């Protein structure tokens, strides 16, 4: 096998299966780019499922009244009125709402799980400002009870990111929110990897307080640029070696492997960055080294540079109203997500970064929509739903697999009892790849984590209900 890791398009072996043992040439090494492959399998499902008579928000800007969603073999087959019922399992959703499965692009579930005991604090390798070599999937505890509560809130896919103490925090991973006992069972097949970066206060505080670089924002930038410069060099060395220009094989470096993955467009940047001036610099730095600046997370000041973000094609993933916990989160406005959404080619996302609000991303989007509409915007339900579905999928490179109800996409679907933008809305049924993974009315479909099993609890009858 050729070491073609860094040469996109040249006989690339992505090692999904079967590659890695062809070569006997001593100077070549084999790089398996997918050493922990997804073993995800959809849950049991009907081959054909028809959800009838719902108000449907497609995730692509459409709202359809009294309409049906037909799911065949786990894919969206058709959305429209009076779809044929033949042979399908039918769900009457009259008076209910249907949306694509909700996607959170910023979660630490599993890596910073509950209970938040010290033994579980695995979300950030806070030992060096550059830990691009760590992969957060190696920290994910699939029994985090938060996966189950998120599913009850309609979350079907989520990106787990490392924390933000480091300039380069390591690789993130996209999961399907199915109950599982290994991480591989949750990994979203074929989802691109991501790299977490962090601007601003966190890296300079964590390392500056240790009398170590970075200790300032300019130190942050120097740290980023030094790493990218080294990655460019590393990439060139491997290319030279592959092309026979140099005879000595460069030493493999897991940290630089990840950065080169970014330079090659295979790994997507997800950058914790609050402030307008810092995001603008991150965009320029990406141009300097030839990669895509990716998605800005938290982006509390994104409204100040909404046009720049849209022009440059960056997504921004934001909270509706968290603020004031540190200086870089002081300039919050309640309409941030709507302002970022307004220009053409924008990509505005509501994220959670929280095991709590991930359960209510629909409510988080609702707050933005209504506050913005009080202040000269005219945002409809069918627009706002994109912030937690299509745009989120786009930031993850998965818009052709999930995030909307387009024909052929994975049937990740939520049935709500009310408009998802009501405080009273609850996800009633949740489907991933056409398989029911949650049902509010049927405890058969309510998973309980190993951790919660056998712990003190009160029963439904003790609650005096049902």
């Amino acid at each position, binding site marked *: 096998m050729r070491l073609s890791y860094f040469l996109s398009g040249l006989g690339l072996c992505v090692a999904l299966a079967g590659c890695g043992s062809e070569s006997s040439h001593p100077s070549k090494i084999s790089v398996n780019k997918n050493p922990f492959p997804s073993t995800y399998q959809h849950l049991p499902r009907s081959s054909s499922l028809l959800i009838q008579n719902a108000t449907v928000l497609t995730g692509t800007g459409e709202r359809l009244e009294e309409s049906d969603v037909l799911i065949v073999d786990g894919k969206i087959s058709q959305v429209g009125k009076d779809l044929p019922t033949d042979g399908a399992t039918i769900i009457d959703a009259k008076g209910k709402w249907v949306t694509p499965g909700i996607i959170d692009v910023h979660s630490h579930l599993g890596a910073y799980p*509950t*209970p938040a005991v010290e033994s579980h604090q695995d979300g950030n390798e806070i030992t060096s400002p550059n830990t691009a070599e760590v992969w957060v999937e190696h920290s994910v505890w699939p029994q985090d009870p938060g996966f189950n509560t998120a599913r009850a809130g309609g979350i079907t896919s989520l990106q787990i990111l490392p924390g933000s103490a480091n300039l380069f925090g390591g690789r993130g991973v996209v999961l399907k929110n199915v109950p599982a006992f290994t991480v591989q069972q949750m990994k979203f097949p074929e989802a691109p990897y991501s790299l977490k970066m962090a601007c601003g206060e966190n890296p300079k505080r964590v390392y500056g307080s240790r009398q170590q670089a970075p200790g300032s924002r300019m130190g942050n930038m120097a740290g980023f640029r030094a790493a990218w410069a080294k990655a460019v060099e590393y990439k060139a060395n491997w290319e030279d070696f592959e092309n026979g220009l140099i005879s000595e094989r460069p030493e493999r470096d897991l940290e630089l492997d990840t950065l080169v993955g970014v330079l090659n467009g295979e790994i997507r940047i997800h950058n914790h960055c609050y402030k307008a001036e810092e995001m603008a610099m991150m965009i320029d730095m990406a141009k300097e080294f030839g990669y895509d600046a990716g998605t800005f997370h938290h982006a509390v000041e994104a*409204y100040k540079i909404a046009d720049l973000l849209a022009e440059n094609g960056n997504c921004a993933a934001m909270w509706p109203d968290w*603020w004031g916990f540190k200086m870089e989160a002081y300039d919050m406005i309640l309409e941030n997500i*709507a302002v970022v959404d307004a220009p053409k080619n924008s990509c505005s996302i509501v994220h959670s970064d929280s095991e709590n609000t991930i359960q209510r991303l629909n409510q988080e989007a609702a*707050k933005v929509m209504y506050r913005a509409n009080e202040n000269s*915007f*005219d945002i409809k339900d069918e627009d706002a739903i994109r912030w937690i579905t299509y745009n989120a999928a786009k930031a993850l490179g998965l818009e052709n697999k999930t995030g909307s109800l387009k024909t052929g996409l994975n049937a990740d679907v939520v049935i709500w009892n009310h408009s998802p933008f009501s405080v009273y809305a609850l996800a009633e049924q949740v489907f991933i790849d056409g398989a029911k993974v949650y049902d509010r009315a049927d405890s058969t479909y309510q998973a309980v984590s190993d951790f*919660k099993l056998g712990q003190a609890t*009160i029963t439904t009858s003790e609650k005096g209900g049902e």
Partner: protein
Amino acid sequence: MLSKKKLAAALFISSMSGLTFAESVAITNANLYTGATPAVLEGATIVFEDGKISAINPDTLNADTVIDGTGKIVTPGLIGSINALGLVEVGAVADTRDSGTEKGSITFNPSLAFNPESTLLPLARKGGVTSDIIVSSAESNDFAGAATLVSTSSSLDFTTTEVAVITYLHGEEKGSRASKIQELDDALSKQQEKLTKKDDKEGDKAKSPSESEKKLTAMLEGKLPLIVATERPADILQMLALKAKYNLKLIIAGASGAVAVTDKLVEADVPVIISATHDLPESFDELYAALDNASVLASKGVKIAITVAGDSSHNLHQLRFEAGNAVAHGLDYQTAIRAITSNLADFFALESKGSLEVGKDADLVVWSGDPLEFSSRVESIWIAGEQQSTITRQDKLRDRYLNTQQSDLPPGYRK
């Protein structure tokens, strides 16, 4: 997305919303959610004057200002609790934080540092909150310090009222929570002994009591409530035992485990303050956290108030949505309204607060629609009869960057 016409309308409204203070104000034909009995008065008129509610549905309407409340909902001003409003500006900026101290004690009173000019207050008002119970966060001490009623008005002409003492009881990083329970018991026991001895030696010149002794005495006399922030059922039972032993007025906050001891809470007449969105076991103390806890507690007869989960200082404007979530998970709607208004007044003996009744403070809010829904907003808000602005620093930043003034100069010139 931005329509110019709507923009102009928004500007017009905000220029009209300056502070006004009329002699008497009447809101007519509104639906009053009273926080009292009856819970709802439809198509009602409410009048206030000199800072107090002076009439509800008077025979003749006589007011300097009359506001048409048709289609609107009026509630008492919402009451927040268990946070550090006015005691923190930026969480990570140490010199803007005043809610805690290493040397906390029963006499530590963080409200001496209350800053009504904090930018957090207008945002709280935007969420319809008119009063708040701020508390000491000095968790490691036996008693952490005072809980104090403050107004969300930004006026420097303000008063604060100490309404309770708070302590925190949970798993400790070092040592045992048992020590904390013993310390609380010891302090109360010693003071009770002193009071008994004093009674015995009637006529002796008693030493004048220290501030901490005065507080302990007030607690023993049931005049000063003790808030215990705790979660585990077993810990709640320990506190109920302490209450029984010393006849304390007890309030449990946090209280995810309350659902497992509802009978005992009802029997002891101990209310709880909970978040309606707390459903994960953040610690081993919180295994009972669940979204329907508010509903279950209320259905079992436990008196509840609702507070905001997490950073409830910066996020206090979300109080109404917390209550909405409780309703989504089964809580009766008007019970939810009381859980963010009159129940707090009841727990903390705030006699002039929390309900729309004649004689109460004119702390009230006119809502455009269902106050617990995202789609509604505060249209007008009064604290003690004085109309309040809901323009926040966030609004100013938004208008600056949306360039609502249509200025050719850079944002830095737009004010």
